[in-house]
């Protein structure tokens, strides 16, 4: 029998409201019959129509999605490894390397990475952007995974090893399910950071590379039209759909299946 405290419910609902009121404005204004994102004038589907013909914007959105998927995947894997390693072993260098990208101002990191890529004569493009995103996302995943592990009982893993499991099996069947909520939380944060990044992307993008934030921020001094609201709304829905699909494809991994009795 669960006792549901009313106060908690009210506070949580207030929290969701705080999160969603601006979003509702964003979605509603994508139907706004005004070039500006400033006040409601009238209803129109024009912006969605414009968007359907705006190859540049659509390509930018596609690039952003692709980079975010790749970057969040790789940084989740590397970040989980880092989080586990930081918990299990007394390391000195890795915690610093993991935490510093979060602290360092983006513009410094962006300029530094550009100089670095140029020195290596590495062609700038989608790949350079993805590499940059992974670098700053690893830390977020690692910190969450590590905090999830904090105070966790290693005896379970030991028991598995004693029963003859290899380290990999012990990780896959014992540790990973236990830390999965932390891994998912980290992956979601990494995806969010990547899909909306501007500063680092600006410096590491190649001559023909456009991501959605780059496209949108370049409009900042003119007008950020509701076309941007439209593409954002669609991108959100698309990403939601992708994630729901993914959770159906790999339910046991993500822990979304029903609890077994």
């Amino acid at each position, binding site marked *: 029998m669960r006792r549901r*405290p009313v106060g908690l419910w009210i506070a*949580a609902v207030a929290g*969701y409201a*705080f*999160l969603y009121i*601006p*979003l509702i404005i964003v979605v509603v204004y994508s139907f706004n019959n005004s070039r500006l*994102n*400033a006040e409601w004038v009238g209803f129109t589907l024009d912006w969605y129509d414009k968007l359907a013909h705006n190859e540049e914007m659509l390509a930018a959105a596609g690039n952003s999605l692709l980079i975010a998927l790749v970057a969040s995947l790789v940084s989740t894997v*590397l*970040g989980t*490894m*880092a989080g586990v*390693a930081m918990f*299990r*072993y007394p*390391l000195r260098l890795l915690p610093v*390397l*993991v*935490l510093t990208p*979060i*602290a*360092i*101002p983006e*513009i*410094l*990191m962006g*300029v*530094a990475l550009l*100089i*670095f890529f140029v020195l290596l004569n590495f062609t700038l493009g989608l790949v350079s952007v993805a590499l940059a995103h992974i670098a700053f996302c*690893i830390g*977020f995943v690692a*910190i*969450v995974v*590590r*905090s*999830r592990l*904090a*105070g*966790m009982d*290693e*005896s379970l893993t*030991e028991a598995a090893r004693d029963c003859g499991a290899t380290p990999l099996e012990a990780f896959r069947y014992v540790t990973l399910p236990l830390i999965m*909520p932390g891994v998912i939380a980290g992956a*979601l*944060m990494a995806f*969010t950071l990547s899909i*909306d990044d501007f500063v680092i992307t600006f410096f590491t993008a190649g001559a023909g590379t456009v991501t959605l934030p780059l496209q949108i921020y370049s409009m900042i001094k003119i007008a*950020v039209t509701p076309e*941007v609201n439209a*593409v*954002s709304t669609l991108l*959100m829905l698309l*990403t939601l759909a992708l994630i729901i699909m993914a*959770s159906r494809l790999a339910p046991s991994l*993500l*822990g*979304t299946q*029903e609890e077994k009795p």
Partner: protein
Amino acid sequence: MASRAPGRWGKWLVSGPPLLYLLIFFAVPTLIMALASFRTPGEFGGLAPLIDDTGALDLNVESYARFVAEPVYAQVFLKSVWYALLTTLACLALAYPLAALIARSPKKYRNLLLLLVILPFWSNFLIRIYAWMIILGPQAALVRSVNGILGAFGMAPVSLLFSSFAVLACLVYVHLPFMVLPLYANLEKHDQALLDAAQDLGASAWQRFWRITFPLSLPGVYAGAALVFIPALGMFAIPDILGGPEDSLIGNVIKQQFLEARDWPFGSVLSIVLTVAALLLAGLAAWVGRGNLGTPSSAGESRA
């Protein structure tokens, strides 16, 4: 025990790949820019050549001296620390109930509820801020009701837009998921049975929270605080778009060094100060909370 792979080998296997990646794509580039803090700015932008006309290495500490000599930069820096602190505390207050609710819901809804928290943040940052400008704008309901209340007490009306309040509200908004997610990851593993037992023994709701839930959740609190405070310190876009004339933060000053002032060495100095300060504060918080975090060695002691 002999059948186990030696601990050291396992350590490199797990920590190796992220370490290597970060060394290549983070440490090296950053060291290049850290070195830049000792160089002279290029006359038209960028950096002056490392080897100057006389063939000597052109390194100096001029930029560091400037930071020390001109107190205005330290003032802006302290203001940013204050804003980041307020943001972190507000995020904590707002995020805790959300994370707790999600952690306590039936398992099949948890990931969905979590997704719902982060979904708004997959829309573009700029238009979310513009949405806030609409919410805080002079014509909107919020400001008018606030001013109505103030007017009832005979106080002058305020403008919510282009103010510190607007900057803080948006800072909290933008960083909220980064507090919710780590808190959730921690609260999710709390055993409800503990709380039920406490309730049976007569503990009030507040006591259950303050003496059981909160201490157990401290690792999540610290993780969330780090993931909010540190990025919030370097924020510049929000003050740029809806800040008032005095809401310039250290992130804005650093950006100006790389853009308008074209003074990369000084920008590098300010960045290094910011980064070191952020890491020190994070380290301090970790040290203070060490007893609650569960250090690695305590878990591995039985295996010596």
